[in-house]
């Protein structure tokens, strides 16, 4: 069973995404911001990270850049999951090392499709 860390400041989004990912056979963990996510990754690197962009303390892009510098930080598949829909922002996320990009709102079909695209399923 693969693991996925859900990083989002919205409890509701974490809950909905968690339910979808459990149905896709993932074990899930949660973090409310990039800083908490860094702590989790230092302890145990997940197989995948579903990552929000705009969060307090440390945003998703800063987290992603730091993650990719960490030992083993190249390994997790990172799927951005954000309300940001500008092409420039999507390009910025991909250039920073994101593997895929989900625009909110999402449904289970979109998450599954993007996880397949990223080679996680």
């Amino acid at each position, binding site marked *: 069973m693969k693991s996925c860390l859900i990083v989002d400041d919205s409890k509701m989004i974490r809950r909905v995404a968690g339910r979808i990912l459990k149905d896709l056979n993932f074990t899930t963990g949660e973090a409310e911001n990039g800083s908490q996510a860094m702590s989790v990754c230092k302890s145990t690197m997940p197989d995948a990270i579903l990552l929000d962009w705009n969060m307090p303390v440390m945003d998703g892009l800063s987290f992603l850049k730091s993650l990719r510098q960490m030992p083993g930080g190249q390994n997790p598949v990172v799927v951005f999951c954000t309300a940001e*829909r*500008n*092409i420039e922002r999507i390009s910025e996320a*991909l250039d920073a090392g994101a593997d895929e990009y989900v*625009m909110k*709102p999402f449904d289970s079909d979109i998450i599954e499709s993007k996880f397949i*695209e990223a080679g996680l399923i």
Partner: protein
Amino acid sequence: MGSVRSLESGYYEALRRLTLEIAGVKLGSNTDFLVETRLSALARQQGYSSLEALISELFTDGNTRLAVQVVSALLERDLRFFDDKAGFASLSKIIWPRISAAFAGDKIKILSYGCATGQDAYSLAMTLSDIEDAFPDLAPQAGFEVTAVDYPSRALARATAGRFTHFDVQRGLPARSLVKHFTRDGEDWVISDRLRKRITFQEFHLLSNPEPLGQYHLVVMRNALARYAPSAQMRILRSLAPALETGGYLMLGSREGLGDLNFGLDPVENCPGFYKRRATRYSEDEPTLSGAVSPAREAG
């Protein structure tokens, strides 16, 4: 669950017969919801006061264009970009290099038969355009063009516009392809002019003879055959085969096949769903329906 029927019961059977006659597709017996939702939307779009008013004109006035629109609305499919990735992988790695080598110097002509909302045609164009960008020396010198045909319908109008919703572009389309080949316009995503210019969308009755469309190096009809009645499958395949240039390829879905039928087409080894047209024409004595591998299943 209670009945959703708002029309007299005879109309539902009449609509099933109409769909079989016009498109060769057998609707399932439980299509009331489809009729109510899709045809109510069509009635609103066409300015009818109600679904009943549309149905009344359809069956009392014999409006043939409306009949085609009704059938197209009933058969509209929910498509995804790059659906069936195995087929696109075979196309990129094996079939396209062969086509480029065999028809070097020609502009490669591709026919997307039954394009619906256009995801297949655009996925093809994205795939081939990416190959051109990455390996310019291996791409056909004169480039490629896609002709995409289907019944006149709301789906074809959407395909022609090249405009997709937030949900459409997140099903099967990699984020890098979205960034490269689309621009954002309000809440929608629009295919780039560069790709849009390479595709011609055209109204066409899929059960009619495709000879006027000309000949193609690649004909694509993916994951659609199974919805047709066996006689319609035969008719489509028999008339599509001559639309291929000798040495050209037919691309079905990677889980579809011709079975014992061949229409002058040979399966391509290690490329499920691909067939190559051989030099000699097929015989009219080809085995018939009993050999069909993709049995028609009921749509709806």
